[in-house]
C-alpha cells in the first residue's frame, strides 16, 4: 500500500529525513518509535503533504500512485489521514461543519454524491458513541479551548468519520490517561481491516498494549535504523534508545 524509498526531506537548510525506507502493506499496523527530534513528525507531515518540508530525494508510492505529486487535500481524498501531534485550532468553524465540508469534498473527489443532513447526522451519532465524544464539543469551534485529551479524541473522531485507508497517528497517546488511551485504541482497532493500514507514531509502548502492531521500527536521525516484531517495543521501553545509538555508531 505504502512504499517509501530513500526519502530525503529538509526544512530550510536543515536536512531532517536522510534516506528513509519503509513499506506498509494493507492490513498491517506499524509502530514508529524513536527519540525526540528523530524526524517522526516530519515523516508524518511529509506524507500528509505539508509544504514547509522540501523533499529533496526519494519517492513515496501510495497504492500505485506518486503520493508526493498530490496536494494535501487529494491525499486525503485518496485515503490518507494524519492525526496531528498538535491539532490546530480553527476559530469559528465547528467540528460538525468542518467534517461535513471535508467529507463532501472527499466524496466529490471520488465522484460520489454529497451526504444529506440526515445521513451525515446518523453517521456522526454512530461515531460519537465509538469515541465517547459529546455533541456539545462538536458544535464548538474546532479545537478552540479544547483540553489536550479532547483534541486527541477529536482527531480520532475525525478519523472514524473519514475512514481512511492509511491512518497516521502522531503521538496521539501522549498526555492521555488510560481511559482516553483505550478510546483511541478502540477507534484504531475498529478501522482495522484487510484493506486498511495504520502507522502509529509513539513514544511509549503503553499504547501498543491496546493497538498491537505487526512491526515496530526505530526512527533515528532521519532514518529507520531498526525494525522488528512487537517485542522490540518492549525492549525499547526497558532499555531506552542508547543501545540502538551505540549499535549504529559502532
Amino acid at each position, binding site marked *: 500500500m505504502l512504499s517509501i524509498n530513500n526519502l530525503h526531506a529538509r526544512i530550510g537548510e536543515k536536512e531532517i529525513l536522510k534516506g528513509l525506507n519503509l513499506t506498509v502493506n494493507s492490513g498491517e499496523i506499524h509502530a514508529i518509535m524513536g527519540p525526540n527530534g528523530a524526524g517522526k513528525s516530519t515523516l508524518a507531515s511529509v506524507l500528509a503533504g505539508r509544504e514547509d518540508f522540501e523533499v529533496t530525494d526519494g519517492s513515496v508510492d501510495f497504492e500505485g500512485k506518486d503520493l508526493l505529486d498530490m496536494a494535501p*487535500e487529494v491525499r486525503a481524498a485518496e485515503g490518507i489521514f494524519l492525526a496531528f501531534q498538535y491539532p*490546530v485550532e*480553527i*476559530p469559528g468553524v465547528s467540528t460538525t461543519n468542518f467534517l461535513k465540508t471535508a467529507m463532501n*469534498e472527499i466524496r466529490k473527489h471520488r465522484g460520489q454524491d454529497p451526504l444529506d443532513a440526515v445521513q451525515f447526522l446518523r453517521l456522526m451519532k454512530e461515531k460519537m458513541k465509538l469515541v465517547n465524544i459529546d455533541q456539545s464539543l462538536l458544535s464548538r469551534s474546532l479545537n478552540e479551548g479544547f483540553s489536550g485529551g479532547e483534541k486527541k479524541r477529536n482527531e480520532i473522531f475525525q478519523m472514524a468519520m473519514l475512514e481512511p485507508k492509511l491512518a497516521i497517528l502522531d503521538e496521539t497517546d501522549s498526555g492521555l490517561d488510560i481511559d482516553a488511551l483505550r478510546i483511541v485504541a478502540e477507534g484504531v482497532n475498529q478501522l482495522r481491516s484487510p484493506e486498511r493500514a495504520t502507522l502509529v507514531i509513539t513514544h511509549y509502548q503503553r499504547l501498543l498494549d491496546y493497538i498491537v502492531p505487526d512491526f515496530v521500527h526505530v526512527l533515528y536521525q532521519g532514518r529507520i535504523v531498526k525494525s522488528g516484531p512487537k517485542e522490540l517495543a518492549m525492549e525499547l521501553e526497558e532499555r531506552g534508545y542508547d543501545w540502538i545509538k551505540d549499535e549504529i555508531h559502532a
Partner: protein
Amino acid sequence: MTPTINTYNHFKDQLLASFRLAEDRMNGEAKTAFHGIRRAALDQFDRLGFPTLRHEEWKYSNVTALLKEDFDLDASSSLTANDLTQLEIPNLDGNILYFVNGRYRADLSRVVSPASEVELLSFADAQKAEPELIGDHFSRYADYQDNAFTALNTAFAQDGIVIRVPANTTVAQPVILRFVTDSREKNIVSQPRNLILVGRNAEVTVSESYRTLGDGAGFTNVVTEINLERDARMQYYKVQNDTEQSYHIGTTQVRQADSSHFYSATVTLNGNFVRNNLNIVLNGQHAEAFMYGLYMPNGKQHVDNHTLVDHAMPNSYSNELYKGILNDSGTGVFNGKIYVRPDAQKTNAYQSCKNVVLAPGASMNTKPQLEIYADDVKCSHGTTTGQLNDEALFYMQSRGIPKDEARTLLLYAFVQDVLSQIKIQPIREYLEGVVRQKLGE
C-alpha cells in the same frame, strides 16, 4: 501625489459659491435660526477647509482624489421605481425609505409602521412642519467645529430622515434607509442629514445602506444624529456596498442617557473611499454601547473607521469589535478612541480590532487611543493584524478541503462574529452572499 492648492480649493470654492447662490435666492428663510446654524457651519467649513494628511485625524486617509473629481452640484435624478429592482434585497420587510442623491423619495418608499409607533418624516418636511423639533435637536449632537465634513453637511442640510419614537414604544418593523446615488448622467454630491430620537424606554432598529447606480463619481457626505433617552434601545446598522467610483464620508453621532442600550454594526463591503466616524457619548449611568464593524477593502479600496466612545458618567459599559479582511492593494484604518472622564468611575470599556491581510500590497493601520481620567475602571484593548494561519489551512487540507475552500471557510468564520450581530435577517443574508462572493473571487 502632493495636492496642489488648486486641487484643494476648486471643490471648496464651488461649494461656497453654491451655498451663497442658494442663500441669495432665499426670502425670509435666510433669517431663520435653522439657516443661522447652516451659515455658521459654512463659515466654519470655509475656515477649516478640506483636511490634508497633516491633519492628525486624516493621517492615513487622503481625500485628494475626491477633491479632483468634477462634481455637478445639481442633484436631480430621473430614477424611477424600475431602476431600483436591481438594488432590491430579497424578502426585505419593514419601512423601506429611499433617498436618491440625498433627497427623500416618497414615491419610491413604503411606510408600514403606524404613526403611533414611529414618526417618519423627511428632514425637508420636518423643517417646515416641525421647526421646534429641528430647532431643539439639529446640530445639537454632531459638533462641526473640528470636522470640515460635518461642517459641510450641516451647512448644506436640506433633506434626509427624521425618526421619532415616542416613549414606551417598540417599533415592530425595522426602519430601512436606502441611500442611492444616481450617477448615471453626472458626478453626484449627496449630503443626507438624519435625526433619530428614541424616547424613554422605546426601541427601534434602523439600517442605513449606501448604493450607487451608474458609473459616475458619487460623493456621499452624511451625518446622522441619534439621541437615546433613558432606557431606550436601538439597533443601528450602517451598510456600504458601493461602487469603485464612490466616496463616502459619514459621521454617526450618538448620545445616550441612563440605562440606554445602543447596538451598532458598520459593514463596509465595497466602496472606493470610505470614512466612517462613529462617536458615542455615554451621557448616563448604566448606559451600554456595543459597536461591531467589518470592512473588506480589495482592489484599491480604502476604508477608514474612526470610533469614539466618551464615558461621561459612572457605571457605563462599551464593547467594540472591528474586523477587517484586506486584499490586493486595499487599505484600512482603524482608530478607536475611548475617553473615560474623571467622574466616570466603574466604567467598563473593551475594544478589539482584528485583521487578516491576504496580499502583500494590502495594509492596515490600527490605532487604539485610550484616555482614562478615572481610577476605578476596567478597560482593555487589543489589535491584531496578520495573515491567514498556514497551519490551520494545512490542517483543513489534510482533511480533504481544497486550499481555496479552506481559506474561504476560515475567512467566512472570521466575519461571522460581526455579521451575526445583524438581526434583520434578509439584510444579514444579503451581506453574507456578498461576502461569500467577495471571498470566492
